């Protein structure tokens, strides 16, 4: 599986400033990811873990200020190598004190113009995105077909309207919308949530991107529809074979669809590796957070026995007031006396514990 990554994110930091709290919310804090050709990389995490912000940062769609402040996003497709965060240093000045960022200056309008320029020809063409709320993500003032047609005309070599229409219908069929000809002229509000999501998927794939980013594609849909969308994505994965960055809080979805997975927490990747290894309850060597997350989902045995769920103690991380040691320390149930001080005061690094499996935990370093 070792190849040249199509999308390589290095040391991405995206901060937001809360004026009412006079502090930074460290939404994404030094994330490294590599997406290889043909694979599906899942990012799993709870709300506030920074998984969606990572995706938006790649697409340059972060609107809250100051937004992306450091990093490197390398995109390599068909021999074209591009850094999507090119020259970010010209727009951002960071002041650190005691190893923490205390002040950021950013020329936001300038950066916005710059990134729009850099990403022209990347958005849509090279990377497409599926969003989490299908009904709100489609323009309510325009028909579904027109919106897909627009994407095709903008991002592919087709620039004949009639041809683009045919292509649109082809994609609508590919995502198994019933009577695509009828749906072509429907406005999004005439469609159900599941159908809208199918149309969104069609739109994202229609521009034949190198990378597809799917941000919570099943959230907010009914259970039966969710499973349909998942099986559609599964099918498309084998038929179209697009490189995918899949983001979800739903472990089951990630488990079904992704080859590798990164677990995010508090803006950091805590663990990454093959999803079969990480997300199966049977495998033992994993980050305590991943283990606890898996344990908190009711299993068939628990349901039968009506037993208590293994809840993770404490509350979700407040990204404004991050602890100085391991981010998960306060909630961790695997802290031993031996490593307690280390956990509390020093943040572990992401290190390989077996092939392709990296974990950010002190437990594995002393052994």
């Amino acid at each position, binding site marked *: 599986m070792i190849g040249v990554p199509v999308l390589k994110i290095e040391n991405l930091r995206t901060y937001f400033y809360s004026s*009412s*709290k006079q502090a930074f919310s460290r939404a994404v804090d030094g994330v490294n990811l590599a997406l290889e050709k043909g694979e599906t990389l899942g990012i799993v995490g709870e709300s506030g873990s920074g998984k969606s912000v990572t995706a938006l940062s790649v697409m340059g769609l972060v609107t809250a*200020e*100051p937004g992306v402040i450091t990093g490197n996003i390398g995109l390599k497709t068909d021999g074209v190598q591009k850094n999507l965060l090119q020259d970010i240093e010209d727009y951002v000045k960071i002041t650190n004190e005691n190893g923490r960022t205390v002040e950021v200056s950013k020329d936001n309008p300038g950066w916005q113009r710059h990134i729009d320029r850099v990403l022209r020809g990347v958005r849509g063409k090279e990377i497409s995105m599926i969003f989490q709320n299908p009904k709100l993500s489609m323009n309510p003032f325009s028909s579904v077909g027109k919106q897909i047609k627009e994407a095709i005309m903008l991002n592919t070599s087709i620039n004949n309207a009639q041809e683009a229409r045919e292509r649109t219908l082809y994609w609508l069929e590919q995502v198994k919308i019933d009577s695509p000809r009828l749906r072509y002229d429907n406005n999004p509000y005439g469609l159900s949530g599941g159908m809208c999501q199918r149309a969104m998927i069609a739109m994202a794939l229609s521009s034949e991107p190198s990378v597809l980013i799917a941000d919570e594609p099943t959230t907010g849909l009914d259970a039966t529809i969710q499973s349909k969308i998942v099986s559609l994505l599964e099918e498309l994965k084998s038929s179209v074979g697009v490189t995918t960055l899949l983001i979800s809080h739903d472990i089951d979805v990630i488990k079904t669809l992704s080859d590798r997975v990164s677990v995010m927490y508090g803006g950091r990747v805590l663990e990454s590796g093959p999803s079969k290894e990480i997300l199966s309850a049977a495998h033992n060597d994993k980050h305590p957070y991943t283990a606890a997350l898996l344990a908190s989902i009711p299993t068939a045995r628990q349901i039968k026995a009506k037993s208590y769920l293994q809840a993770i103690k404490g509350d979700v991380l407040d990204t404004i007031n991050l602890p100085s040691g391991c981010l998960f320390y306060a909630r961790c149930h695997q802290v031993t006396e031996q490593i307690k001080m280390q956990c509390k005061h020093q943040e572990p690094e992401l290190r390989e514990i077996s092939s392709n499996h990296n974990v950010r935990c002190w437990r594995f370093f002393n052994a």
Partner: protein
Amino acid sequence: MKRYRQHSIEFGNLSDVPFWKTAGPIDLVYISYGLLVVLLVFVSYVLGMTGFLPFDPQEINLELLMAPPNTEGHLLGTDFMGRDILARLIIGIQAYFLPGLLAIALALALGTCFGVLAGYWGGGLDTASTYVSNLLNSFPRLVLILLMVAAFKPDIYLVMTVVGITNAPTVASLIKSKIQFLKQKNFIEAATALGLKNAVIIIKHILWHNCRSVLIIQATLGMAEVILIETSLSYLGFGVQEPTPSWGNMVQSGANYFMQGKFWPSTAPAMAILLTIMGFHLLGDSLNNILERKRDQ
């Protein structure tokens, strides 16, 4: 380059950051200016009431007609009858103060009633109140006032009643949308489910906790409107009548001399109007920014 700086101290409870740190600095400047204007209006009103003025505003001085500013102690000059402009400006606020408060009170009271009826109970009441506000909004205010003035008599209180009533739909729609927002968040249902009485929900939770800032903002903007209306009416000759000064009729009478190049008798009150209305507008808008909008989320 915009600077974002982390709070230097280690904060425990983040809610303790004072509000003036959280608000945009420009809004604070606007608010201070607006509050200054409000204060000046109050002080002028009190000065006018107590007669504590630099000159007698009604005293005619035929030797000093149209004196330019800063002659013989007349800081802003004198008007066509030699009356001190500053004194007349100060006493002129009397024309707005009580009628203006009447208009605002009327607008808020009526608007709140209609807003609550339409938003809280909805249904037919909502349809009816939409109809009434559409009806009231159909008249250009000044034309309606001219009609009233023609039908009854040119009286500032009558005019202000009309202003108050025609302002009510704006307040009503704001209150209504606020209530609908709370309804959408199931807040009202939750309160009912708890067992609270309608009156408690409306008065305590809706009006006091969630609508008071809306009402304050509307009162502020209402005052600006009152001054603007009175000015226009005075110009048309239906406002406060000479010799009682109001800023409107001062501009109007001064404007006759504008063509002769004597700008001060009308410029001084016009500037007073400009600065005051701007003060109220800025105050209202920045209060809206600070109180009504969550800038972070």
